[in-house]
């Protein structure tokens, strides 16, 4: 309490050292708290057992032309559709300028495997699973809020902002795919 004159004169080295200590203590405290809080938040991120399911292999040979199956990858549903020639034709005929999220049909399939359309089955709006072979564009229709996708899974109408997501995958052989 004898520092009345010190604090009045902020140029004395004493006062500035005290200020420095004050700020430094606060800063160290804040870093310490942040460091302690981070693990408490980070524990909510996907854990090792969730991440371990990052790949699945799937044999597509049993899927007849014109039908599709839904498999599970990382907890997410994935459409594997065996497209008909007419569907591929239809997707290719669309000019890119008509698309909300422009992507050509080639960019959404693997070369030499154009009949296989593999996409995460969650609508890019808010995640419902769209219904196949329906909607105004012969592809998928999401009943939740009315998004229409075409035969390449591209968004054509409705609130969804982007095309159905194509996950990373490769063909190990003609009939085996590895997703992830």
């Amino acid at each position: 309490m004898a520092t009345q004159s010190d604090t009045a004169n902020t140029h004395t080295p004493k006062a500035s050292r005290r200020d420095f200590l004050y700020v430094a203590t606060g800063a160290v405290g804040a870093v310490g708290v942040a460091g302690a809080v981070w693990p408490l938040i980070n524990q909510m991120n996907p854990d090792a057992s969730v991440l371990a399911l990052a790949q699945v292999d799937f044999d597509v040979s049993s899927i007849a032309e014109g039908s599709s199956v839904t498999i599970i990858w990382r907890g997410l549903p994935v459409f594997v559709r065996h497209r008909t020639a007419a569907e591929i034709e239809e997707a290719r005929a669309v000019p890119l300028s008509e698309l909300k999220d422009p992507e050509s049909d080639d960019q959404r399939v693997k070369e030499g495997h154009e009949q296989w359309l593999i996409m995460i089955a969650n609508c890019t709006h808010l995640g419902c699973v769209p219904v196949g072979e329906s909607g105004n564009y012969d592809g998928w229709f999401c009943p939740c809020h009315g998004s229409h996708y075409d035969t390449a899974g591209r968004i054509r109408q409705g609130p969804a902002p982007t095309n159905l997501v194509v996950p990373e995958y490769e063909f190990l052989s003609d009939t085996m795919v590895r997703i992830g």
Partner: protein
Amino acid sequence: MSSHESNYSPTGPVERWVDERLPLVRFAKEHLMDFPTPKNLNYWWTFGAILAIMLVVQIVTGIVLAMHYTPHIDLAFDSVEHIRRDVNGGRIIQATHAVGASMFFVALYIHIFRGLYFGSYKAPREILWMLGVIIFILVMAIAFMGYVLPWGQMSFWGATVITNIFSAVPVAGEPLLQLLRGGFAVDNPTLNRFFSLHYLLPFVVAAVVVLHIWALHVPGNNNPIGVDVKSSRDTVPFHPYYTMKDLFAIVVFFIPFAWFVFFAPDILGHPDNYIQANAQITPAHIVPEWYLLPFYTILRAIDFNVLFIDSRLGGVIAMAGSLVILFFLPWLDRSRVRSGTFRPMFKIFYWLFVVNFLVLTYLGAQPAEGIYVLLAKISTAYYFAYFLIILPLLSRIETPRPLPASISESVLGKAH
């Protein structure tokens, strides 16, 4: 008003000894019994007490349910059925909790619309109002997470759609979504954390309710004519006048509550939630619980891009905005007159707002197609216009009717 004296006088040495150390009894008497309360409060003012009781009902039934419930994706659905079929009295306890959530929202909405009509959000009650908005948002979060716990189809897809809302956040969206879900999809980690938070947050609400009542007891109650208390002739002690009135209202409120619990426990729910969650099939028509529908409609109403904001983010901003705007209400409505009774123009727009809110609720349960899409946009526009255009404008152009000089004058005037 806030500094009124308590007329508690401890009787006997024990009471005096306690009072000098922890004046809890004095505090309770001052705030729960002697508190001077305007003598003209009508039945719309009983919903605060109803809400307090409902919070206790939810907490008590919830703790009991948690003794039998299992938060695991393989067991949760069956454990709720087990509660309903095997646990002694479990059918009633589970129904009380599930129906109780709906009744909680009935009371909440009435309580909020009461405040909107009588201008209870105006000075000096702004903080009281804002604490109320915080409670409202918390209870919506609690009810949403509670609905996920039975792990039916609606639980799962509701959780998927609502958590997906966060993925609309620019840049950080996807990591944030994974952080919330604890995985790439809604799954066991999601169910576990929702249970943990569903258990925790009601106690946070209870704490905010204490602040809410504290903020109420500083200026005291608003009242149907919105004129400040001027003298002790305008008030009566809270007990027995309002304790009895509130108790009566609670009993009346419990009649429909009991009817639902005993005769139609599932009528407010959705049949799809009696199908166990399935990550591969979305029900043809997913809808949230009725009490979230108005905000769901606002979310869906934005199906167009605005500049660089895509439709999804736009919907999220609109929905969040529809709640955040409530915090600013005390500064948007500048009219000096509190009660809608004396505001001829306000009244019209207020009732239009009420009807509009019911329309928003109705639309939330309809498929997003045809005329419903257009109606959703119109009613969303009115929701925002009410706060952002109509109320600020009315405070400038409206001529209110003359106010009674005091509460007691208005009460006596009516009687003669």
